[in-house]
């Protein structure tokens, strides 16, 4: 079909054809005409005007009251035209916002990126998947001057842009800590003061901070209200919860954190996670801790990275491939 011209002559001919034939084809062309008019920002009142002038040319003896009625119709349609123009402007604005958010999401990715370190004797697996464009979970690896591994797992309340902004603050605060070895309890204490001073009253962050000492194979950790992790004893073939009392970051300026230590034997495994893992829902039900452990147990003999990926796949399927919350899982396994 050749492209329609949006001029009076063309409209008039189409109209005449329709009146003569009552043919569906002419109506279809009218539909095309309407779409093209919108593309070219032609407003309803202009179309009415074209219609009126076509009528006048086709039927020169039209009575005045018919002609006058078109002035009336034109006034009636004015608001529709304006509303459509406003809609167009808002749609453009929305596209702009969308692309800004995706730029921000990319910046966040770069900003918060952390490299999984290679450490002799320790097999590390880590996976973090956002439910929406921007991730409210955060994990970070750092190796200090003496070769120990620091690992942080955090979850900001809420999702999306506000959570992501908050995370960036945490990341900067952590980067500003001195390079020398700091105990998990002090790290959480300092972060708490930063967060408490800088966030809204209904915002908070949970964090588990652990330090793996590669010299004596000990794992020290402290928690700021974070979802408990798990410790797997190879020898006893048993899981136990890794939990530590402590208030979430950002609620009370003088929170103190307690630090615990575990001796890690060969084949033992440390699992750290966010509540996106424990709050997976099966339809309306929640999964129980037992089920998480069963899944981890099933894959426990694989390399750490494969464990986290398999566990993720399991829960992704469980939720029909629609994550409801950001999902972060980290596994540290002492090589046998």
């Amino acid at each position, binding site marked *: 079909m050749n492209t329609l011209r949006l001029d009076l002559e063309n409209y008039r001919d189409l109209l005449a054809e329709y009146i003569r034939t009552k043919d569906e084809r002419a109506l279809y062309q009218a539909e095309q005409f309407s779409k093209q008019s919108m593309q070219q920002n032609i407003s309803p009142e202009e179309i009415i005007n074209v219609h009126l002038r076509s009528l006048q040319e086709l039927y020169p003896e039209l009575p005045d009251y018919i002609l006058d009625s078109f002035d009336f119709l034109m006034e009636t349609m004015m608001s529709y035209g304006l509303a459509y123009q406003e809609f167009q402007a808002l749609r453009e604005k929305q596209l702009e916002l969308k692309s800004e958010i995706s730029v921000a999401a990319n910046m966040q990715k770069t900003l918060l990126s952390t490299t999984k370190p290679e450490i002799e004797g320790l097999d590390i697996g880590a996976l973090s998947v956002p439910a929406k464009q921007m991730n409210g979970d955060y994990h970070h690896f750092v190796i200090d001057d003496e070769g120990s591994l620091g690992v942080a797992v955090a979850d900001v309340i809420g999702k999306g842009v506000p959570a992501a902004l908050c995370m960036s603050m945490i990341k900067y605060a952590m980067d500003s800590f001195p390079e020398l070895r700091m105990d998990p309890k002090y790290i959480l204490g300092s972060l708490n003061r930063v967060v408490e001073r800088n966030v809204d009253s*209904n915002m*908070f962050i949970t964090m588990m901070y652990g330090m793996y000492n590669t010299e004596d194979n000990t794992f020290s950790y402290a928690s700021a*209200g974070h979802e408990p992790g798990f410790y797997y004893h190879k020898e006893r073939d048993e899981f136990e919860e890794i*939990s530590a009392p402590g208030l*979430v970051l950002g609620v009370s300026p003088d929170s103190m954190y307690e630090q615990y230590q575990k001796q890690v034997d060969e084949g033992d495994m440390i699992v750290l996670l966010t509540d996106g893992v424990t709050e997976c829902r099966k339809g309306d039900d929640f999964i129980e801790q037992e089920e998480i452990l069963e899944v981890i147990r099933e894959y426990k003999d694989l390399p750490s990275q494969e464990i986290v990926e398999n566990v993720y796949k399991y829960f992704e399927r469980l939720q029909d491939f629609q994550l409801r919350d950001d999902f972060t899982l980290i596994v540290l396994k002492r090589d046998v």
Partner: protein
Amino acid sequence: MNLNIDVKQPEERYSVMTLEGEVDAFTAPKLKEELLPLTEAENALVEVDLGGVNYMDSTGLGTFISALKSTKEHGSRMRLVQMEDRVYRLFKITGLTEIMEIDTSVRGGM
């Protein structure tokens, strides 16, 4: 995803809020709007009955943290009662049981 909020004021400066449903990102703003003003009177006691709340997420917790901060600012009190196990676990993990007045003697399902 719905939350019913019912507020009764048996005495001046004593209000009882009864919640039923889920406290999550969708319902938390409404809860905040109703709960915060109650905490803003000096010496007021606000009792929140959570017996009908079967699910709360971190946004919901954030609302109670806001309310707690508001009680400290205005010299009022907030007490949470009838908490279900699942909800109590959330307050326990996040350390909030240590700083909030939570009446465990009437805890749901224990």
